[in-house]
């Protein structure tokens, strides 16, 4: 085949560079603004690209034990409990339905798959959560989305792809189905379980819809709700006694610091998640 032309290569390079910059720049700007002083923000017209005199004052304010700190704790709590619950439920269901010929297995599978096609709508879901007495509890953020049908399919197809000889020989040696799950299936499925866990964790961390619907008590608010209150609705944050410095940090820096706090856990887990996509672990499951 002919060699690529130089202008074709240049155009491609420019297009990709533009896309990468357009995605990356906002992150840099948010972090930079959160580290800036009032003087710098005013001088730059509200937008700092590189802070010349970085300060952590904004973080000191929000992590001093106010609303943001409480929301951060709530979010971490919901995300960790939720992830453990979801992964356990998903692994159990995926394994239970991974063997062909289990009595009633196909029927249960159909029930799970059809739920992807039809949703009941906002009102009935809300009424159900209220009737179950989950309104205004953290359980309302976890139980309604306990198992994602997509994650279930990913795990089930991985389990089904494991060599059956392993399980058959374990069975001959007298291992029951539970022991096969714990001793053979789980150790072989670390990678897909890790991906699914990260998916759940990120989902719980970002969950805004359920929190908005089901959390009334501001004491229970999670980070997305606090973020909306202070950053999007622009409610000024009380500086409180916590800030001991002489010049309080600017509101904009505080707002961006809240955004950064919400971003950091995702940025921390992303490298692990991302390794699996470029390797194509999931694409097989998506297609199958």
């Amino acid at each position, binding site marked *: *085949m002919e060699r*690529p032309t130089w202008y074709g290569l240049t155009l491609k390079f420019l297009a*990709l560079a533009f*896309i990468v910059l*357009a*995605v990356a720049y*906002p992150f840099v*700007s*948010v972090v930079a603004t959160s580290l800036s002083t009032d003087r710098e923000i005013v001088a730059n*017209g509200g*937008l700092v690209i590189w802070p010349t005199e970085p300060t952590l004052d904004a973080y000191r304010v929000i992590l001093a034990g106010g609303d943001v700190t409480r929301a951060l704790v709530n979010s971490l709590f919901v995300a960790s409990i939720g992830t453990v619950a979801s992964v356990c*439920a998903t692994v*159990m*269901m995926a*394994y*239970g*339905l991974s063997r*062909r*010929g*289990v*009595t*009633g*297995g*196909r029927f249960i599978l159909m029930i*799970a798959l059809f*739920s992807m096609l*039809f*949703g*009941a*709508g*906002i*009102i*009935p*879901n*809300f*009424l*159900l959560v*209220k009737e179950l007495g989950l309104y205004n509890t953290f359980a309302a953020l976890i139980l309604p*989305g*306990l*198992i994602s049908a997509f994650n279930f399919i990913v795990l089930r197809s991985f389990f089904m792809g494991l060599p059956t000889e392993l399980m058959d020989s374990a069975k001959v040696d007298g291992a*029951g*189905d*539970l022991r096969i*799950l714990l001793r053979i299936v789980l150790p072989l499925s670390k990678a897909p379980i890790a991906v699914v866990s990260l998916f759940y964790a990120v989902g719980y961390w*970002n969950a*805004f*819809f359920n929190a908005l619907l089901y959390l009334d008590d501001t004491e229970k608010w999670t980070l997305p709700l606090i973020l*909306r209150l202070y950053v*999007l609705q622009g409610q000024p944050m009380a500086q409180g006694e916590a800030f001991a410095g002489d010049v309080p940090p600017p509101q904009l820096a505080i707002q961006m610091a809240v*955004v950064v706090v*919400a*971003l950091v856990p*995702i940025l921390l887990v992303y490298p692990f998640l*991302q390794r699996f*996509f*470029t390797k*194509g672990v*999931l694409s097989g499951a*998506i297609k199958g």
Partner: protein
Amino acid sequence: MTVEAPAKKATADPGRPVVKRRRLTLVQRLKRDKVMLLLAGPGLLYFLVFHYLPMLGNVVAFQDYQPYLGFFNSEWIGLENFTDAFADARFWSAVTNTLVIALVQLVFFFPAPIALALLLNSVLSSKIRRFVQSVVYLPHFIGWVIIVSIFQQLLGAAGLLPNVLDAVGLPRYDMMTDPDAFPWLLTIQLVWKDMGWGTIIFLAALLAVDPQLYEAAAVDGASRWRRLWHVTLPGITPIIILLLILNLGSILSVGFEQLILQRDNVGAAAGEVLDTYVYFNGIQNGEWGPSAAIGIVKAVFGTAMILGANKLAHFFGHEGIYRGADK
């Protein structure tokens, strides 16, 4: 169906040693599968309670539902909720907004991942490709609250865009609060968040295109663009059509989180879509019946769109989401 499955398997599996198997009774088979069923149990319970039970809850669409009376004592009023909902001008305004936003997104967001996937696919260096992929996948994992906050910082009154406009002598422009630009704002945000993520499925489809087809086309003298048009695109057409059909099915649900966060910036006249209307009217104002009725209309419409689009795909000789009976 469920009773036959294991028996079929026993006879249709040539790999197993030929041992004549007794047909097990239902009780025996339940005993054999006890552990597997117990493990799947909580999952089954979850789907029944949180996905199928709410479907029954849709009965409130036919009731004058009062929370203190509950499902069983509220008065049945037939289709009154539907006629009430259809008589509300705000409902029709929400329908219009939803369709306009969905249309802009269909035309300007839907093709973006395809274009990026083709671009990435044509990059020969796998290092560059990996790097770009790991950057552009990232925004998919960021919640809408954060994304809207970031856009506030870029396009909002004190953000990057107004400052740049100011610097070059143009009037300051705040896109975040301009009702006319709202569908475009939403589409730009969606492109930023999900253009990269959307490429995954197309890149997988592109990998599956047979390289021999390219070689043959090149030998026949097809130029780069001709190969793109006659080999690459036909190779990924099935997946494009599949996603298009699914997209049409959700045409009445344009991102609830994204919308509810920004509705008040532009006002209800431009920012109210069906989902936010249901939320404010139903949950905030207690109009349970009419709002549930709208939910049902939405679901029926979505299903009809999927089936209709699938029929259309079959008509043009494509597979769609499932094979037609005639194939």
